[in-house]
């Protein structure tokens, strides 16, 4: 082995000497560059001195299916959902919107401590979720509630989680909106940004190793999260490990107060895809049909172990979270209104339903009323549900409670015997 390597060492020029012409030498090198350095992309020489000016390059186009009024532009692109599916899509989006309004208001009334709305992004959640299989694994960032809702995560569980009560799957250990459900193949939200991206690639790699794999991973992230180093690591690993993964970027124009113009200087997030060797598409994120088609095609490609990057162009209509006041940095409030009025994904989809005669004002009224009632009921029930017993504090740090923690638990019991009146013990479940 060693001797073979050394014979090929660059100090041995015998191979080169055997090429007679300059052209033969060029061909040899171009072939080497192409195969070994450039992933089989065709390498060429040029005698023109030109530094690529990225600002002159054409932006990746935005794939769409309907126009701003919700009309189909090219009918071959109509995914032909049928009535049942269309209504389910619409109902999921509106239910999400209504739940957001109620939970947002309840935070303002001080009934829950924190909330994040999904306003204006309902289309990209539900459009992508509908194109995935429910068995596909989803990693979210936090603003992807529509995906979980599409998969049937019950309203009650959303509410229990926001209250952190004893019925919450996480027993109140994680912040509001950090949902997760093994049953729904939705990995629990993690607060530090972008950590979900390399993790998602790891999961996709594990899928790929299974015989006859029929699952992909879809990982969601924001335009801001895309700046973390973890995004680079994830893109590069997915491409070099050939993983069945969809990177779904919700580009909503803002990361808290930072506008995308300060977040990156290139052609958005899609512009990065080809550089990493990712199949890439940019889509109108408020056009549910476009998001659906793009995700469905991305899923097909990803299942052949070619990772795909989707950039969905949308707009964050609400504040970043209930701890944010976006009027401090979105000074042009009219613009926010214009997005809401002129390009709301729910309105765009509704046009379609109404045109098909699958929906009307009466249905709308009844549906709104019913959902409000269901949300409020689930909300009230969650509010009344007791919090977990305080011993829950010591559970789940390890598979078995170690001695040190048992001692601390006893200490806590003793402490509460003495000082219990200072703690809201009546709100906890009894043992």
């Amino acid at each position, binding site marked *: 082995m060693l001797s073979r390597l050394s014979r090929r060492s660059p100090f041995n020029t015998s191979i080169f000497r055997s090429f007679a012409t300059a052209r033969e030498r060029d061909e040899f090198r171009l072939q080497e560059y192409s195969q070994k350095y450039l992933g089989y992309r065709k390498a060429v020489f040029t005698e023109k001195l030109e530094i690529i000016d990225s600002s002159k390059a054409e932006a990746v186009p935005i794939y769409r299916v309907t126009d701003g009024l919700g009309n189909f532009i090219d009918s071959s692109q109509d995914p032909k959902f049928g009535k049942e599916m269309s209504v389910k899509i619409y109902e999921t989006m509106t239910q999400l919107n209504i739940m957001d309004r109620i939970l947002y208001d309840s935070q303002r009334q001080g009934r829950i401590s924190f909330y994040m709305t999904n306003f204006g992004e309902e289309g990209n959640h539900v459009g992508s979720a509908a194109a995935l299989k429910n068995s596909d694994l989803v990693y979210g960032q936090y603003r992807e509630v529509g995906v979980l809702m599409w998969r049937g995560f019950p309203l009650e569980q959303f509410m229990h989680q926001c209250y952190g009560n004893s019925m919450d799957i996480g*027993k109140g250990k994680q912040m509001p909106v950090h949902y997760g459900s093994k049953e729904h193949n939705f990995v629990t939200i993690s607060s530090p940004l972008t950590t979900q991206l390399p993790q998602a690639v790891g999961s996709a790699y594990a899928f790929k190793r299974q015989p006859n794999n029929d699952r992909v991973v879809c990982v969601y992230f924001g335009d801001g999260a895309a700046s973390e180093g973890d995004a680079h690591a994830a893109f590069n690993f997915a491409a070099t490990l050939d993983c069945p993964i969809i990177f779904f970027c919700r580009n909503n124009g803002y990361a808290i107060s*930072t506008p995308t113009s300060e977040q990156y200087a290139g052609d958005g997030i899609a512009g990065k895809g080809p550089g990493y060797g990712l199949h890439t598409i940019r889509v109108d994120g408020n056009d549910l049909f476009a998001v659906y088609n793009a995700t469905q095609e991305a899923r097909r490609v990803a299942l052949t172990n070619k990772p795909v990057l989707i950039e969905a162009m949308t707009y964050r209509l609400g504040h970043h979270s209930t701890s944010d006041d976006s009027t401090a940095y979105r000074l042009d409030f009219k613009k926010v209104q214009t997005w809401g009025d002129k390009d709301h994904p729910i309105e765009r989809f509704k046009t379609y339903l109404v045109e098909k005669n699958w929906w009307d004002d009466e249905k709308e009224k009844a549906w709104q009323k019913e959902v409000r009632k269901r949300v409020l009921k689930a909300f009230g029930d969650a509010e009344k549900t007791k919090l977990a017993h305080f011993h829950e504090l010591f559970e789940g740090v390890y598979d078995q409670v170690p001695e040190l923690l048992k001692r601390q638990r006893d200490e806590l019991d003793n402490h509460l015997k003495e000082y219990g009146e200072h703690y809201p013990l009546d709100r906890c479940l009894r043992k």
Partner: protein
Amino acid sequence: MRPVSVIFGRFLGRCSSLQASRQLATGSTCTIRDALNQALDEEIRRDPNVFLMGEEVAQYDGAYKVSKGLWKKHGDSRIWDTPITEMGFAGIAVGAAFAGLRPVCEFMTFNFSMQAIDQIINSAAKTYYMSAGKVTCPIVFRGPNGAAAGVAAQHSQDFSAWFAHCPGLKVVTPYNAEEAKGLLKASIRDDNPVVFLENEILYGQPFPFSDEAKSEDFVLPIGKAHVERVGKHVTIVTYSRGMEFSLEAAKELASIGVEAEVINLRTLRPFDFETIKKSIMKTNHLVTVETGWPFAGIGAEIIAQVIESEAFDYLDAPPYRVTGVDVPMPYTQTLEAAALPTTAHVVKTVKKSLHIQ
């Protein structure tokens, strides 16, 4: 329900429980937030090499409004907004410091500094040593640290022990407004990398603020602990938010005739052991107070040093630690409250040390 101090790096006014009840003596006061702001403002004006960088520190005034008004005053070249890349901008701070600038690098919270830990430990802290003293790295890494309210495991923790463990770093943990200002100014002027840990809960709290502290020349020494309250029965050693519980406990203990000496460490590295030793040799009892985890924590280090020193022979009881519970921080209010130390824990532990029933 309870107020939330910050979620995902967003500030919302919050008073600590103390704030409402405490009647401040006459004379002027200043919040921690304003004290830090003054320090930054003055140091940026004083030295053209100083600049502030971090997520949303410019136009938005910082997630906790610590840099309020500074961008308007000093402009783009001195106050930079960065994209969301902690590892990246910590690296940029390190490189800028290698090249002669003096960056103040804000983490939206120290929870996110974990993404940048390699730049802090392996580059900032060690380059001076590895270059045999040829390359300095004068950076201040600063931001809110410690348990916050209602933000659960990944947003609510104390990193003091993590950073204090690493040689090459200085670690500064101010409690009140004068310390916040005086120590931040000293940190910015220091030629070593400094990790400056502010407390998320205390930002909005007003503290007495002397005329001396208002001066542009007000600087406090790094590495010196401060005896905040003189006593003779027991030594309580603490820092940052632990001061709040310890001072309240000392007051309560005074009512039963126990005079506690409360030592505010102010700096964890370099560590002012002499002040602690002297105190223990007087009081013969030691209780340490911190909000972080017990294992290999600051209290553990203090007690180890005491036991190894001549002060050991002066102890009349085992030294005790008051710490946070050894679990990740849960979200739900009742569980969160049970995970954190309180004034009552300090009182009880002191009584245990003094054999008072």
